[in-house]
């Protein structure tokens, strides 16, 4: 890993900087993974300054935030963990490092200082924590609930350990949700959703516009909140894997894989190379079928139906192959704890031929799209997300790379086979314009790269077993943390075992969760009728955002 040059963050640098500021108000340990660092702050008042040093001085970003109710657990009271990762300088390999900053929020009327004024990407995390655990982020600029919608009784927090998930919660009469209002002559509001005109997931979009110009867009999500993190608590890991795979259909492999990688850390189990290799195969199949389908869907946003059909045809061919290979069109059930379900060696040449042909079809589709000026004109300059905004919001995946942010979890936090010698190298495409056209190009390049990766992986499958035995019970209170590059970007999973070796707490920050706040920003450079196009150029999931 290239570490030459100045200001590459490392555990040593972090310790030196934070240690100098906090002295005896800091307790340091390693973990969750061997190379990671955990900083326990004696006083939560120090949190904003620590976050500022990590993010502003050391170029790190907030990857996820995990709050837990440990009033009857090991930490006592409510605990909040802020997980940071290196994000800069871009353009070179950064260390695979997570720095967890832990604070206690207290037991009665728990609170922590809000990081949202400093780190915009902390906004949703903190509101979610306030809803689900009742931990107040003091100084947060937005008092509105996020996950729990109208009529939820105040003071009831479903992720607290004393909340029974089967509680029948009454629905109170509630005033209309206070959307951010734009006022002035000629300004009007357009409410859209949660039920949309097409076959689309539910969300509510409140446009404030003058004519067709969008002045402000308030997006309200979490309609599909199914309580899956609560659902996973107390489950055997094999059952919790079924939950993880169903956080989202389009990212089934990525979520399943992120869950088992965190689980294997908790269990202290090393997965054999052949299984890791095959995990990369299904991860890329998932990326490929999503990307070709998403390119088609983008055409639907521009009413170019030939492109929609061509993309759908390519997607269907890969999904049929998925079903042949794994018995499920969304590849569910293939990644299992400790390895993979079965070998794919006999199908290697079949997969190779298919992805090659899909790659050719994709190239033809793209040529057809780029040749069509009326299509390209819809995309150019539409839905611009600036590099600065993408960085501030911690945007990930295709959306980040199309705005010039050089991140990919396959390189930054290698998983599956991506850290093994002999694995084909992942090629990242970066664009700087940040518009819908850039996102199309990045997605297309990435799909083509997936074709190459799949062929490279299948040509060099290492020998060896397909799985290792998992312990029946997990070591109590151990934590696992993983980041997997899904078709939408990095999905970060945090997992901890309870005293009985079952799941104590499972938190998922999906790629879409990180990216959604960017969509209303990007919509500001578009007119109302272009919003579907902007939305489809990001192509985010609601299900794994809302959980």
């Amino acid at each position, binding site marked *: 890993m290239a570490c030459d040059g100045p200001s590459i963050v490392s555990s040593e640098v972090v310790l030196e900087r934070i240690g100098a500021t906090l002295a005896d108000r800091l307790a340091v340990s390693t973990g969750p993974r061997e190379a990671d660092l955990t900083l326990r702050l004696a006083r939560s008042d120090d949190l904003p300054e620590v976050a500022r040093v990590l993010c502003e001085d050391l170029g790190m970003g907030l990857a996820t935030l995990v709050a837990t109710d440990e009033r009857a657990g090991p930490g006592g009271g409510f605990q909040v963990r802020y997980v940071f990762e290196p994000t800069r300088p871009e353009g070179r390999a950064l260390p695979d490092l997570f720095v967890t900053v832990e604070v206690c929020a207290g037991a009665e009327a728990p609170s922590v200082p809000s990081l949202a004024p400093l780190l915009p990407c902390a906004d949703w995390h903190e509101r979610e924590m306030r809803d689900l655990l009742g931990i107040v982020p003091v100084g947060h600029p937005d008092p509105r609930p996020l996950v729990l919608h109208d009529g939820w009784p105040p003071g009831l927090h479903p992720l607290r350990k004393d909340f029974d998930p089967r509680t029948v919660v009454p629905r109170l009469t509630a005033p209309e949700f206070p959307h951010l209002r734009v006022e002035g002559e000629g300004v009007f509001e357009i409410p859209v959703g949660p039920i949309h005109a097409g076959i689309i997931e539910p969300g509510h979009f409140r446009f404030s516009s003058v004519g067709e110009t969008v002045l402000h867009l308030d997006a309200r999500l979490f309609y599909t909140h*199914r309580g899956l993190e609560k659902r996973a608590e107390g489950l055997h890991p094999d059952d919790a894997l079924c939950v993880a795979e169903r956080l989202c*259909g389009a990212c089934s492999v990525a979520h399943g894989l992120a869950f088992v990688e965190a689980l294997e850390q908790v269990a202290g189990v090393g997965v054999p190379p052949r299984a890791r290799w095959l995990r990369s195969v299904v991860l890329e199949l998932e990326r490929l079928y999503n990307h070709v389908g998403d390119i088609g869907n983008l055409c639907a946003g521009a009413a170019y139906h030939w492109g929609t059909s061509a993309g759908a*045809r390519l997607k269907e061919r890969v999904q049929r192959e998925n079903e042949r290979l794994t018995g499920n069109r969304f590849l569910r059930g293939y990644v299992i704890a400790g390895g993979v379900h079965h070998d794919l060696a006999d199908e290697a040449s079949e997969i190779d031929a298919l992805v090659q042909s899909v790659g050719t079809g994709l190239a033809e589709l793209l040529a057809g799209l780029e040749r069509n000026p009326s299509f390209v004109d819809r995309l150019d300059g539409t839905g611009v997300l600036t590099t600065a905004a993408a960085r501030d919001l911690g945007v990930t995946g295709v959306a980040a790379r199309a705005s010039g942010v050089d991140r990919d979890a396959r390189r930054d936090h290698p998983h599956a086979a991506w850290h093994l010698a002999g694995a084909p190298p992942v090629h990242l495409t970066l664009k700087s314009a940040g518009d819908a056209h850039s996102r199309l190009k990045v997605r297309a390049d990435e799909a083509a790269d997936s074709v190459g990766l799949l062929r490279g992986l299948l040509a060099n499958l290492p020998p060896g077993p397909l799985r290792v035995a998992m312990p029946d019970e997990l070591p109590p209170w151990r934590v696992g943390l993983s980041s997997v590059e899904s078709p939408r970007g990095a999905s970060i999973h945090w997992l901890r075992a309870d005293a009985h070796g079952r799941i104590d707490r499972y938190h998922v920050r999906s790629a879409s969760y990180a990216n959604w706040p960017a969509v209303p920003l990007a919509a500001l450079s578009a007119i109302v009728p272009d919003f579907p196009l902007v939305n489809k150029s990001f192509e985010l999931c609601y299900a794994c955002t809302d959980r």
Partner: protein
Amino acid sequence: MLRVLLQGLRDGIVTSRYPAEPAQVPARFRGAPQPEAGRPWAALPLPSVCPSEAISGGPNDTDRTIDLGKCLFCGRCAEPFPAHPAGSALRLGRDFELSVTRREQLLVRMGADSGGLVSAIDPPAMTSEALGEQVTRRIGATLGRSLALRHLDAGSCNACDWELVALLAPHYDARRLGIDFVASPRHADGVIVTGPVTRNLELAVRRTFEAVPEPRIVIAVGACACSGGIAGQSYASAGGVDRVLPVDVWVPGCPPRPEAILFGILLALGRVGGKGGG
């Protein structure tokens, strides 16, 4: 334009002829778990093997039930398990046409015979398919043989939704059968619902249904819609569409493949026969 035309001619017709011709499922396809008659009772896996509580009955019971409405089709119950390494007495079927017009038709019952061997219990004789027939007759009389449906995502993981999208794409092209998904509930003959009905969507689900003119049908697609699926019933999930709306057709699967959904829609129209005649 010419290039697009030539490409289309070269690629030819990809559209399935299902249901006029049967659809093939691949060898690894995971269908509904079924009991293998004559296997020792101990070879039946315990309910605890199932992640979605689809299997019921205890270790000393002499009957056991698999609820296909709850089943995730993960196949774990058909795998060898420690107590019976010789293999499970359940195997996965090849049939994907599993839609029904009565919820209890999704229950697969099995019992131990006098020799302690597994035997399938035939479903209770249907005195009449009254309800299902009523529905299809009513729909048939009112709507003829075509159906306009409004899709309702009631909190799905989006897998079922993507399969509905696939139904309109070239390989399945449900419109060739007179089936379409429409933008407004006012234009619809019914709703096709995915997801368990989350608390945050319950109001929108009810309002959308109310906006559909009568007579109207409800098709529940996927394990979540049929029973709550992996989400179950909780503070956030109603635990299935029938807790909120009157369901006419249940389409099990996680997710059901596109042809399985098509079968369910055709069952609603009375154009194919379901289990026990429908």
